[in-house]
């Protein structure tokens, strides 16, 4: 029974809870048992809030028995990346610097999930302060559930691994340059970076004020839509939170792909991609075409500059945010995070402004591209996830063998730079051993998350990648 419950997605769990075929307590116990069985192997959770979750489950069961059903997430366990403040519950930021911080306030994201009846079951591991490699982070590295010893990507590493390993049906990640979408791709799950300002960042530890986002990570596009429905909306506590109306996201899932135009960038985003990823990506486009969509060519001429400019903006802002902490306790930082923050102190202001001006150019180019398409499709990541780095390698960004040229970490930064929403979903696996997940990434127009859900859900209706689960690794 417990194994069956953890394999259900949030929509399915919500249905059996609503019909009282299972209690919230049974659901919580199933996921707590799963976490306790696997966390020794994966290190996805920093804090397991089992007793808190049991208390909440009792309240949920009382409410549902009384006919007070709050909606699709009522009684659904969730876990949050440990940069989201949770009142009275330790929030570490994945760092020894803030290892014992117990916030006196609640992030808007977790507050909205709690108000919807969702049940917090734990706080998730991450790359320190949402940056770095993770290997030397304060609470150790997370392992990829598909291949322990391999990277789950980051910085929302625990959020990705927890959903893939069915330790939680819904997790929350944050994304400054791909930190939701990288782990989603590496772990074979769904990750949504919403439009900038669509989800409040109140109570989320800052990495970069102008690039940060928070969003859902789930097993299915349907679950991502259900979760965004709860998270989205204006928030007086966050001046950057958008006041745009919140549409009915799950309703978009009912629309097909007839007439939808999929933009395929003619350069940059599809160049230098691993052959197996390229093949999976092309097959995904074929599936979308067979489902009624039409592929058209688009261009974002300066898209290749987004990662270099985005990284400079992100780390400049991060260095400003962490200035005092870095001055007071530099020895407590992950060496790579410390290197990045120290180095960013030397970036000329004129470079920061130039990067922000490039951002304006990118916004215009992306907007122009959307004049001829409804979504843009790219490989989520150009390379397969790799083995976890050795500690001596993870200490620095500087690689002796690295060649000069345009920096290309991923296809993610463009969405943070332009503020557009982006959805990653699984579209295949590599052929070798271990078989590693491959992700498809869809960019949408500003505030057009419904179109992303529509296309992503149609793809998942035609494929079964999202229904595959990693073999359960033995606890170490």
């Amino acid at each position, binding site marked *: 029974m417990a194994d069956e419950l953890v394999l259900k997605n949030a929509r399915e769990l919500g249905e059996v809870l609503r019909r009282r075929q299972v209690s919230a307590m049974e659901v919580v116990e199933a996921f707590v048992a799963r976490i306790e069985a696997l966390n020794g192997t994966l290190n996805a959770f920093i804090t397991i809030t089992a007793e808190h979750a049991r208390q909440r489950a009792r309240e949920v069961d009382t409410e549902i028995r009384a006919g007070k059903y709050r909606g699709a997430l009522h009684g659904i366990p969730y876990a949050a990346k440990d940069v989201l403040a949770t009142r009275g519950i330790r929030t570490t930021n994945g760092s020894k610097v803030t290892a014992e911080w117990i916030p006196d306030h609640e992030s808007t994201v977790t507050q909205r999930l709690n108000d919807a009846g969702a049940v917090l079951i734990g706080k998730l591991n991450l790359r320190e302060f949402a940056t770095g490699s993770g290997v030397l982070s304060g609470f150790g590295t997370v392992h990829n559930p598909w291949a322990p010893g391999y990277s789950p990507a980051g910085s929302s590493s625990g959020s990705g691994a927890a959903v893939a390993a069915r330790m939680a049906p819904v997790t929350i990640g944050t994304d400054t340059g791909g930190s939701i979408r990288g782990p989603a791709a590496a772990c074979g799950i769904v990750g949504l970076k919403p439009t900038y300002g669509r989800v409040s960042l109140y109570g989320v530890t800052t990495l970069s004020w*102008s690039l940060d986002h928070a969003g859902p990570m789930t097993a299915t596009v349907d679950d991502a839509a259900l979760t965004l429905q709860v998270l989205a909306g204006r928030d007086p506590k966050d*001046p950057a939170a958008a006041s745009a109306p919140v549409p009915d996201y799950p309703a978009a899932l009912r629309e097909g792909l007839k007439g939808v135009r999929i933009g395929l960038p003619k350069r940059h985003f599809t160049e230098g991609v691993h052959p197996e990823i390229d093949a999976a990506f092309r097959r995904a486009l074929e599936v979308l075409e067979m489902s009624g969509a039409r592929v058209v060519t688009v261009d974002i*001429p*300066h898209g*290749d*500059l987004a990662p*270099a*400019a985005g*990284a*400079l903006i992100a*780390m400049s802002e991060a260095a400003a945010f962490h200035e005092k902490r870095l*001055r007071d306790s*530099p020895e407590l930082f992950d060496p790579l995070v410390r*290197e*990045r923050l*120290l*180095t*960013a*102190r*030397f*970036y000329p202001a004129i*470079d920061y*402004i*130039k*990067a*922000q*001006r*490039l*951002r*304006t*150019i990118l*916004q215009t180019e992306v907007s122009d591209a959307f004049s001829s398409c409804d979504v843009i499709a790219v490989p989520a990541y150009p390379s397969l996830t790799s083995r976890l780095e050795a500690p001596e390698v993870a200490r*620095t*960004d*500087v690689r002796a063998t*690295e060649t*000069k*040229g*345009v*920096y290309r970490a991923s296809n993610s930064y463009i969405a943070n*730079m332009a503020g557009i929403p982006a959805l990653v979903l699984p579209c295949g696996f590599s052929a070798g051993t271990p078989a590693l997940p491959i992700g498809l990434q869809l960019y949408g127009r500003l505030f057009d998350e419904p179109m992303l859900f529509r296309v992503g859900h149609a793809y998942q209706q035609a494929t079964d990648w999202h229904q595959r689960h990693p073999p359960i690794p033995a606890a170490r």
Partner: protein
Amino acid sequence: MEPTRREIVQMLVALGVIPTALTQPSIGAIGAGDVKGALAIQGRPLADDDVEVVRRALQWSLDRFQPVRDLEIDDAVVPAVTFVPRSR
């Protein structure tokens, strides 16, 4: 649309007309003295070990950023982040 100078250079590199090395920055490498000089301007000390860490990482970061520095941007393009006056 007319190709930009950057696109022309990229095309010439791809055709082998000019070597990639000629498109790389011509300024000298960053030395420890440069970092220490900048520290004096910042008014913040740094241990010698950290100076070397910063020197290597700064060189790496700015090399990576060089294509953005090389970009010619029209005067009409404003930064994406602008001041928005508002009261609480």
